[in-house]
């Protein structure tokens, strides 16, 4: 009798401890975010992707997100909790989640994992990123044509290949249309500190930069440029409301097409591990409307975007020398993905420190 009661109690507890079983959704999709969804940058855009799949699939799916998960011990637990609570597809959206994702994936072979910006895969772990440098080539072109002082200011976050690649792509494109251009880089050493991003923008402008680019998450740099009457570009989202008269365009991270595609693949039973690195052509890198610029600049920007999308032009086409004069890419060759993923040198025309 007592044993029966105990078992009944256990059953009740299990029911309580196994949350939300037997709901209508065919698939639960989990997201792990490195920042708050209110950062209006990297995490915000991933969350827009989550909302897009909710809209696309309606009641067939259910989504969950956990925000501000540090890239440390907590990540593993959060990913595991998502896997253990019935999520069939889990997006882990920061580089630092790479090893925890693989570890948990091994424990839950039936759950599909998608890790953003990493390079380690397995049977149930895909990796994905976007070729943001394609967008950088477009804004570089615009900057090269728009600058009067021939100085571009670049607010950079941290010196990883992703950021270095963006700086190089923009500089190469700018110098292609205007060989006198130099790019001045300032490292903020943070992805997200609105005050410092604004300070860095102002420091660059005071040094004569009349075009501001950024590879940090908040709109603060762009906003500072607007208030100083200097042209600039948005990052991650269309930030036109922060610089209605000075935003030239923005490189939008649009994860929606990829998230919809992968969610559909799981629903259809067609999901397979892969590495996805797509750009403008796939709609993952989107240019915000070209504003505040003359028609010829706009036309040139559109042409670069179209050529990059079609593959007619590769932003890293040789001959490319690094700023010490060493030839890195031979004439008429293009950089392969391996070279771009490990890029740790600046091209000619970039000024500023590159921590090794």
């Amino acid at each position, binding site marked *: 009798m007592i044993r029966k009661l105990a078992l009944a109690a256990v059953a009740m507890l299990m029911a309580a401890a196994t949350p939300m079983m037997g709901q209508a959704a065919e698939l639960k999709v989990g997201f792990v975010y490195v920042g708050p969804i209110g950062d209006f940058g990297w995490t915000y855009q991933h969350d827009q992707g989550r909302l897009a799949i909710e809209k696309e699939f309606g009641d067939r799916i259910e989504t969950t*997100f956990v*925000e501000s998960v540090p890239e440390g011990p907590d990540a593993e637990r959060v990913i595991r909790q998502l896997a253990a609570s019935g999520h069939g597809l889990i997006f882990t959206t920061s580089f630092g989640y790479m090893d925890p994702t693989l570890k948990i994936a091994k424990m839950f072979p039936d759950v599909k994992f998608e890790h953003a910006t990493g390079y380690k895969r397995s049977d149930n772990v895909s990796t994905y990123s976007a070729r943001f440098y394609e967008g950088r080539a477009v804004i570089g072109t615009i900057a090269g044509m728009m600058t009067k002082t021939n100085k571009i200011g670049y607010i950079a976050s941290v010196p990883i290949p992703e950021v270095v690649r963006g700086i190089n792509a923009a500089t190469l494109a700018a110098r292609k249309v205007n060989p006198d251009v130099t790019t001045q880089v300032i490292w903020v050493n943070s992805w997200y500190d609105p005050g410092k991003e604004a300070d860095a923008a102002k420091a660059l402008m005071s040094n004569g930069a009349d075009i501001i680019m950024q590879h940090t998450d908040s709109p603060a740099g762009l906003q500072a440029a607007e208030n100083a009457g200097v042209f600039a570009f948005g990052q991650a989202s269309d930030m036109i409301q922060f610089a209605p008269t000075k935003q030239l365009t923005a490189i939008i991270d649009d994860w929606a097409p990829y998230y919809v595609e992968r969610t559909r693949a799981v629903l259809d039973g067609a999901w397979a591990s892969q590495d996805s690195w797509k750009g403008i052509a796939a709609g993952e890198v989107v240019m915000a409307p070209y504003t505040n610029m003359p028609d010829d600049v706009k036309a040139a920007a559109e042409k670069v975007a179209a050529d990059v999308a079609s593959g007619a032009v590769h932003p890293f086409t040789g001959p490319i020398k690094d700023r010490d004069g060493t030839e890195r890419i031979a004439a008429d060759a293009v950089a392969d993905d391996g070279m771009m993923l490990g890029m740790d040198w600046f091209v000619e025309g970039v000024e500023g420190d590159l921590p090794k």
Partner: protein
Amino acid sequence: MILLDPRPQPSRALALLSPVIAIVLTLVAGGILMAAMGKDPVEALSIYFFQPFKEFWLWLTLPPGEAEMWLYTPSEVVVKAIPLALIGAGLAVCFRANVWNIGAAGQYTLGAITGGWIALSAPDGASGIWLVPYLAAGALGGMAWAAIPALLRVRFNANEILVSLMLTYVAAQLLDWLVRGPFKDPAGFGFPESKEFQDGFIMPVLVGGTRLHLGAVLAIVAAVALWLMMTRTMKGFQVRVIGAAPRAGAFAGFSQDRTIWFALLLSGGLAGLAGAVEVSATVQQLQPQISAEYGFVAIIVAFLGRLNPIGALFGALILAVSYIGGENAQIMLKLPKAVTGIFQGMLLFFLLACDTLIHYRIRLAAPGRA
């Protein structure tokens, strides 16, 4: 106006009861908050607070084969509590000495750096015995960082709260520079992280299928040892006397300077040890983020434990439950993280406030007369 009447003696009943009262108050206020967010308060609070305990009970009662899966969450609570308990126990002693080490986060970071330096410079194929110098280096690193505020306080009378706090930022930048520079993994695509530690430098896991590691034993040993020291030894007596009444201590021939050194080196050493333990057990490499904020959270842990090293163990568990409850609430209830921060803040407010009941009776009176 709130008036407090001192009790002739601290109430033993309330010493046990006050956390219960605090939790009840948090449940009531939290329930209102959850209801305001449109969630079922009972379900929400049970997920927030009781999920780990429920699963622990399932692990105890279910037959082998079904039980194992339920151990994970409870074990994670312990994993989360380990660094908090290690740092908190040291801070409890430090604060008892009336020395205010607010910079345990920096000492934690230094412990990870010095330990990591050993781990990254060891020969290939290093065996588990290397854990001993690794952990020792971590503790020494933390002590070295804590020695700076100790020296500046003793020699120049510089406020240790501020010096230790400032050094936290310096330590974070130092780690950042190291993992982007000298410690960077050459094969890591330029990402700011070191090579992964070899197997010999990984804290042994105590229970298969979980991350419960040897650090749990270290935390318990440290807490008990410090408790014994504080209650049974001359050194502990000195610390308590100097902390409570420096002049009486000086009269008794106890050196305040030596107590400052002792308190800072002890708490710094434990914070450094915690840093080395945590890096080895969970991330297993150096990277810019190694959860250094544990050093701040441990201040709350020390006070929740009423500045008793063993109490710090419980304080650490309470904090760990509230962190993991916050994650579960995001996953199962889809509550934003901000709500869990508010909830955690309330819990701490109530816990801190209710301890007053142990020493005082509360009386409400008309304002105007003190």
